[in-house]
């Protein structure tokens, strides 16, 4: 499992998700803190391409052996891609949470929501206070 890190080029959401902005689209995943808290992930229950996600609402579930956690959408939009590899190898979320363990790609519907996200410093401060 990778060491704790919070890349500078990402934005963060209070439910421990990260966001990589790419034009009018964004990639979602969960942070190192979230995957560590969940433990070894054994199953990812994810939505389909074409579904919409709403900021602050759960869009899927990640399961470890003895816990289930909702995954929350940091931003709203329509799903353009789902990381299908997680179906067979959900542990990628543990092994490489900011890379191969990405979860969704979403075409954003409300750029104004970006205001609610934190940068890496703010998120780490948020973690320290929690």
């Amino acid at each position: 499992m990778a060491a704790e890190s919070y890349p500078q080029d990402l934005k963060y959401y209070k439910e421990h998700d990260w966001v990589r902005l790419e034009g009018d689209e964004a990639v979602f995943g969960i942070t190192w803190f979230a995957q560590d808290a969940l433990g070894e992930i054994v199953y990812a229950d994810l939505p389909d391409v074409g579904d919409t996600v709403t900021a602050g609402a759960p869009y899927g579930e990640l399961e470890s052996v003895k816990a289930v956690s909702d995954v929350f959408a940091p931003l709203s939009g329509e799903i353009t891609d789902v990381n299908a590899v997680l179906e067979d190898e959900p542990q990628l979320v543990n092994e490489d949470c900011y890379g191969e363990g990405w979860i969704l790609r979403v075409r954003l519907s409300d750029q104004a929501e970006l205001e609610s996200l934190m940068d890496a410093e703010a998120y780490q401060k948020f973690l320290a206070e929690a």
Partner: protein
Amino acid sequence: MTGRPALDYTPHSETDVRELLEAVGAGSVEELFAEIPAAVRFADELHLPAGLSEAELMAELTRLAAADCPASGLVSFLGAGVYDHYVPAIVDAIVSRGEYLTAYTPYQPERSQGVLQSIFEYQSAICELTGMEVSNASMYDAGTALAEASFLAGGQTRRARVIVSEGVHPEYRQVLATESAGYGPRPETAPLAAGAATDLALLQGALGDDVAAVVLQQPNVFGALEDMAAAARLAHEAGALFVAVVDPVSLGLLAPPGEYRADIVVGEGQALGNPMSYGGPGLGFMAVTARLMRRLPGRLVGETVDAEGRRGFVLTLQTREQHIRREKATSNICSNHALNALAAVVYLSWLGKEGFPALAELCARRAAYLRERLLELPGVEAYTAGPVFREFVVRLPLPATRLVDALVPRGFLAGVPMSRFAGAFGAVAAETPSTGAPSTGAATSATAADPAAGGNAAAAALDDVLLLAVTEKRTREQIDAFVAAVAEVLAGHGEARGGSSVLSESGPAAEEADRA
């Protein structure tokens, strides 16, 4: 010398108690309960009989047991979900081992490999019997397993109705109805046609895009064999799941539900090596296709390896369950019938690949023989069309309860009078189109306008219908003697018509005096 006044399973002597109290800093036992508010302390003594020695206890229980006249000691043709199959000695020997009997749920897998592996083997055996891909670790009974199947189907399809054939055991349907009071799809019934198999035309008419599942039983409660493949097709065409309720012993001979594309299979597993025990504990089995695995309620055992690569077994996919997912769990079930499942897998291993179908075939042949012999008797008529497995109904020239009562003194339990399920047939869902009066021999289907009238007619029509089951314990000699006894009763009934009945004089009470 005075010994202990009654059984006491606590080891401490008075000295132990005194020293333990001292160690915990309490002056008395009373003090341990000081946190219980005085207002809810029970000041009285429980009004229960005083304790006993083991000898006295066994004397009392033996008296109670002796007041029963168990079916297992008579020549019994009782069935309808619980069957008097022979339970081999090795089953009792294995299930009474303390390591199995007195263990808890295998939450510590490293110390519970015995139960875990036995459940894995049970699951495998159920999968083989049913032709399904995944079996859970067992449930309470067929009725609750059916309710769980309905909930599963509702969750999977997000649809609001489940259509259950009236050929499904009435008690299983009652449990489904009770447990569906506030949750899951709304159960409705589909009527039977002539020959007592489900009316597939009416079933098709009742289907719609709000139906989560269609449920049929094979063989059904009248012993009729259903066209499960056709029913499954209808269900799937409507986007519903198909649920098969099956008698596990029938699967030695009959097509497994996996072959006719059932999505969920449930049933009562008592017949697999468990005593009848007045109807419990047996076990409910439940198996599903691979795609429904994550919606399966109850425990599930999976194979894995330990830190050194050795083979082992664990409870798996536990996130489905209530101790993790709480209010979002697939079910509230928090146990299984592990010991009964162990009995089942020992039993199935004992019968084996060749013995299991041989047993099923023997039951079917003897049942067919009994049916033929009974139908030769004047006034006894076929009720179901087509072949049967080891259970069937006949129409008698007298109320079935009277035949049953008349034969008890002769040592026979003739079967289950279908009148005990009066009211369970004929209540057709309001949405179902009526086809009017059914053909002879069919369970009556009520009209949508007046279900009650139809129900009463159905009840009346069942008074002379008897359900008989034949296990491998019933020899030809017993069957022949039984048929002869039935013939005598029927002859007596014929003679007594219009005059005094000989039947009214012999009943269970007289019989008990005879046996005593």
